[in-house]
């Protein structure tokens, strides 16, 4: 009799959902850890100035970033304290700008090339010399839409 009373089939066909939260937490942590908010490591110090006439930059894929500022502390021994340009994640000179732009441009379908913008993230304390040179380099490379990155003035 005892053999029949067990009724194995009826007892527990339910799938345990106890591990579901763990799976979701694991997903959550995975995304938290792997998400990179800024794709390039900052090698120059940039505190953008404040302004009122701001435009939002939409379509992030059409934007390339040029950073100008003095090198951060750990690179100052090597590169000094004079303002420098950073393209992608490395220091660059004026002559690297056309190639950098071309590399970005090649990733974008031709029909959208007119909408490519350069976001210039420039430190407030930088002097205009290097900025003017960058502007000239951008004009020579045919990159005419630029955006001086700035924060909202309160």
């Amino acid at each position, binding site marked *: 009799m005892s053999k029949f*009373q*067990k009724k194995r089939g009826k*007892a527990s066909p339910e799938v345990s*959902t*106890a591990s*579901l*939260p763990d799976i*979701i*937490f694991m997903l*959550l942590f995975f995304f938290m850890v792997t998400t990179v*908010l800024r794709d390039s490591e900052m090698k120059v110090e940039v505190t*953008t*100035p404040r*302004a*009122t*006439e*701001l*435009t*939002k*930059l939409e379509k*992030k894929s059409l*934007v390339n970033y040029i950073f100008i500022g003095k090198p951060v502390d750990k690179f100052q021994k090597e590169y000094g304290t*004079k303002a420098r340009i950073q393209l992608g994640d490395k220091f660059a000179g004026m002559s690297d700008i056309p190639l950098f732009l071309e590399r970005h441009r090649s990733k974008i379908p031709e029909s959208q090339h007119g909408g490519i*913008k350069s*976001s*210039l993230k*420039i*430190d*407030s*304390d*930088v*002097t*205009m*010399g*290097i*900025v*003017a040179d960058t*502007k*000239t380099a*951008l*004009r*020579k490379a*045919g*990159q*005419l*839409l*630029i*955006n*001086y*990155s*700035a*924060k*909202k003035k309160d």
Partner: protein
Amino acid sequence: MGSSRDRMKNEINAGSMADIAFLLLIFFLVTTTIAEDTGVLVKLPPYSEEEVEITKMNTRNVYSVLVNADDQLLVRGELAELDDLRSNAKEFIMNPQKLENMAIEPKKAIVSLKNDRGTKYAVYLEVYNELKAAYRELRDEYAEKNFGKVYEYCSSEERAQTRAAIPLIISEAEPTNFGDEG
């Protein structure tokens, strides 16, 4: 039999844990704002070897702004303050009193911006910002007068008409080699 029932009782119901986790996830998804990029949009002129001669233009139409390496402002040959720049520029462009020494009409007005290599970027951007703000306010006023709403809410034709009436022309000369530390 009895023992298996005991085991069932000891288990905490974890079915709602998933909901809690989802709630957390959604909460963070909604509240997190990934820092968006804002800035002052500028369209540069195409590069050409020869410098554009701005001096050939009728001087009454040119609103020249110079920013030197000491971050001082020279507007149309006179020392000026940054705070006055916006209202000053607006008056020059619109020329409400039809003065002899200001722009003939807004369409003809040209802002010429020049700086030294030693000018601080923050000051330069502030000046540029003020000039752009002056134009924005003028366009708003124009749109308000003609269409009864600010520029931002106008239709594309109305915007085009406003832009044609008050075109934003900011000409930037090559900076002078002065005060650059490099």
